[in-house]
């Protein structure tokens, strides 16, 4: 049962097609990976889903709702939340306040201050940041700032979570922790769609992988199928495979 | 409208438009490259107008000749101001966005510094001087010779500047620095020279614009803000940071202004603003905007 699907998704920047005629779907309860070389259009696709910028042509639907023309805050209230490739935490306020923003504004109905506080502390506990909740977010390490982003996104009570290169820059131990976190998120009932370069994570936790190259979908399948796929191997030959480092 | 009115609208529209184009291109290069939205731009115009006035009335130097002093003077002053004030600001700003916000406010302060220095020197009363006021016949309509000369100079300078930015090597370096200062630096372009240079070029254009304006109109120490607003409108119309957009936008505004003056002379600024509002709603990126 697809929770998110797109047909003919295309995005032009000037004359260049960053995403070209991509059909994709994410089923409820899956962890789907989105991989491809740099510039393949992965983050662009995420930005189209979350409406960071408008789609050039094609259609996307979340739980049957057409996403075209909606604004980011509306898509969030529908149940889609995300993290960002370049961490976009609210640096000068506390970790708790970061998560509170998600708790207060991410749901379609108004929440009371007490409920929001509860949601926020639950989200913080889930990612393991309760001890640091009062600290200004800019004082946190990059790893913990990423955790803040995840907690903030979780506080919006999403049904679909878009993770954009969550593992970038993490040590192998941190990558394992992050993999475990993502699995726990899925076990909570949240579908995960993740852009990643860290192959160990993609192969380790994704049930299905979509491969983009030059804005087009060139392959799709289970981790076993993808790692054996000739085309995929070719386009990655020129690149260093980030097998977990 | 009869033929004479049409000729008048076109010629005066071109005159004002070419000066607006100069002013707007100056502001545009300051924002596009040096990332400073220079709210004190109009004050430089005003100072140049007063200097030209002073050169003429006190020393008998005619405006076109005094350009030989005014142009390098303003280039140098603009360069110095950026090299000292804005470069310091740039080094201390935590993010580019913070720099843009801070430099905007600093320019606001600069507005009052320049305006009040001018007030101390020249006072607040409007003045004028008269040079080459004999009439010239263009297509049956009489224009003052100084207006015609100003028009010619403005158009020539505008075109020259446009070509300079688009064709010359230095122009390419400037455009590279505007798009990506960090990479331009890696390519061997000395950002610490190019940014202040562009600010200086903007000041130079303001200086010439002020010189030309003083030839055609009376001047006052309070004339600056109005021209700053016009420049801002043109730059917003043409797209923030686009030199071609500012060039064309200036002429459009000039013609619009001349037309509006036919019907209601006091409403040209209102018309400009209305145009801006409409465009901001319809095409937020401006006519040729790139950001």
């Amino acid at each position, binding site marked *: 049962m697809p929770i998110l699907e797109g047909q003919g998704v295309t995005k032009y920047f000037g004359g260049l097609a960053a995403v070209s005629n991509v059909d994709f779907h994410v089923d409820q309860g899956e962890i789907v990976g989105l991989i491809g070389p740099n510039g393949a259009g992965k983050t662009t696709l995420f930005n189209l889903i979350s409406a960071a910028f408008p789609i050039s042509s094609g259609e996307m639907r979340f739980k049957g709702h057409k996403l075209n023309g909606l604004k980011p805050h509306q898509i969030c209230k529908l149940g889609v939340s995300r993290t960002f490739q370049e961490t976009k935490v609210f640096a000068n306020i506390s970790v708790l306040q970061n998560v509170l923003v998600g708790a207060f504004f991410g749901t379609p109905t108004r929440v009371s201050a007490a409920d929001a506080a509860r949601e926020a502390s639950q989200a913080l506990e889930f990612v393991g940041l309760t001890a640091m909740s009062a600290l200004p977010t800019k004082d946190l390490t990059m790893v913990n700032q990423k955790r803040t982003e995840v907690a903030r996104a979780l506080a919006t009570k999403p049904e679909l979570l878009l993770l954009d290169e969550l593992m970038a820059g993490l040590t192998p131990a941190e990558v394992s922790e992050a993999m475990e976190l993502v699995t726990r998120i899925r076990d909570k009932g949240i579908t995960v769609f993740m852009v990643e370069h860290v192959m160990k994570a993609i192969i380790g936790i994704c049930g299905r992988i979509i491969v983009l190259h030059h804005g087009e979908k060139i392959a799709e399948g289970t981790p076993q199928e993808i790692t054996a796929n000739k085309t995929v191997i070719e386009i990655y030959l020129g690149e260093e495979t980030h097998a977990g480092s | 409208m009869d033929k004479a009115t049409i000729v008048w609208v076109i010629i005066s529209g071109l005159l004002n438009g070419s000066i607006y184009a100069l002013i707007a291109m100056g502001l545009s290069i300051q924002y596009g490259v040096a990332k400073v939205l220079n709210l004190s731009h109009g004050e430089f115009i005003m100072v140049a107008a007063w200097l030209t006035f002073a050169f003429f009335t006190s020393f008998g130097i005619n405006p076109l000749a005094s350009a030989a002093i005014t142009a390098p003077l303003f280039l140098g002053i603009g360069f110095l101001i950026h090299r000292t*004030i804005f470069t310091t600001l740039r080094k201390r700003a935590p993010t580019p966005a913070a720099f843009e916000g*801070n430099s905007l406010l600093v320019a606001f302060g600069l507005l009052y510094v320049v305006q009040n220095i001018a007030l101390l020197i020249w006072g607040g009363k409007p003045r004028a001087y008269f040079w080459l006021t004999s009439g010239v016949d263009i297509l049956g309509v009489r224009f003052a010779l100084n207006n015609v000369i100003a028009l010619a100079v403005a158009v020539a300078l505008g075109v020259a500047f446009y070509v300079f930015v688009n064709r010359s090597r230095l122009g390419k370096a400037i455009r590279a620095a505007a798009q990506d200062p960090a990479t331009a630096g890696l390519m061997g372009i000395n950002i610490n020279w190019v940014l202040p240079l562009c600010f200086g070029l903007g000041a130079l254009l303001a200086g010439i614009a002020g010189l030309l304006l003083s030839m055609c109109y009376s001047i006052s120490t309070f004339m600056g803000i109005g021209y700053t607003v016009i420049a801002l409108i043109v730059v917003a119309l043409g797209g923030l940071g686009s030199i071609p957009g500012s060039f064309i936008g200036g002429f459009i505004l000039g013609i619009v202004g001349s037309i509006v003056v036919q019907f209601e002379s*006091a409403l040209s600024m209102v018309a400009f603003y209305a145009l801006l509002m409409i465009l*901001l709603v319809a095409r937020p990126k401006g006519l040729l905007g790139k*950001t």
Partner: protein
Amino acid sequence: MDISKFTSKKSLLVAGLVLAILVFLATFPTYGSNSEVGIWVTILMYIILTVSWVMFSGTTGYMSLAVAAFFGIGMYTAAFLYPKSGPLLPLPAVVIMGGLVSFVFALLTGLVTLRLKGMYFAIFTFGFSVLLYHLMVYYELQIIGYRGQRLTPITNVTAFYILIIVMVLTLLAAYLIRHSRLGLAMQSIGESEDAAAHMGVNTTMVKVITFAISAFFMGAAGAALAPKWEYIDPSVAFNMFYSFMPVLMAVFGGMRELYGPVIGAAIFAYTERTLRLRFPYYYMLSFGIALILIIIYLPGGLTGLVPTLKDKLGGVIARLRKGGQSDRHANT
């Protein structure tokens, strides 16, 4: 809101201080001279303008340079409702109307311009007061036939008391907004507008509403001052100076805490009032220089120094304490 926040020792101290100041202000006209009350009127006016400006621009980071526009709209609203020929409404209603008209103008212009990048907004707001100036000049010259408006005069003392009430309301609004979810939304916009939008914040509406609320207080201040000045014209009402001063005062005082703008406004308002008559151009020149220097060298303003001072002071105290303890240990 958490009630325990209000009963902490620090809060009670602050509340007591505020009360003391209010009592002082309320009784001041009984022992202060008229010109001293006049100085206070200026100070109160600037406090209101500065705090309202910070309410929006301080948190969202969108530079509004339109304070003069909304201030002037309030003044002209008063000119129409409280003319010399006879007031059409009682003074409190006029002040409220001044606020409301500004509020509506801000709503409309905000809806158009706050969807765009911050630079376009700054450009638009800078020219807005110039636009209104030209519009009003046109209206006065062509439509009514004479320049300037005369109002039914009010005394310094009346203006003083009205402005105190407006100031208290402004500060209250600023405080409530800051500690409410609206304030949190605004801060998130100031930190990362993209992320805020993606977390469900309707950024346009938040900006527009806060912009309009801040304009309300600016307009109310204008409507209260116009009758005191008795005569206004476009160059007085829409003077860019009233867009410049709140910025200077806010940057000087610092925008992180609520009392920052108040301190900045008080200092510069007093300075302006005393210097303006004697050194008309020099004082403006020095204010311009002050703004430039403050932004370059002290971007956090005066109250931005407080954390630094607290750190330094805390370090000294800790060292003194440690030194004392080690002495004690040595003695036993």
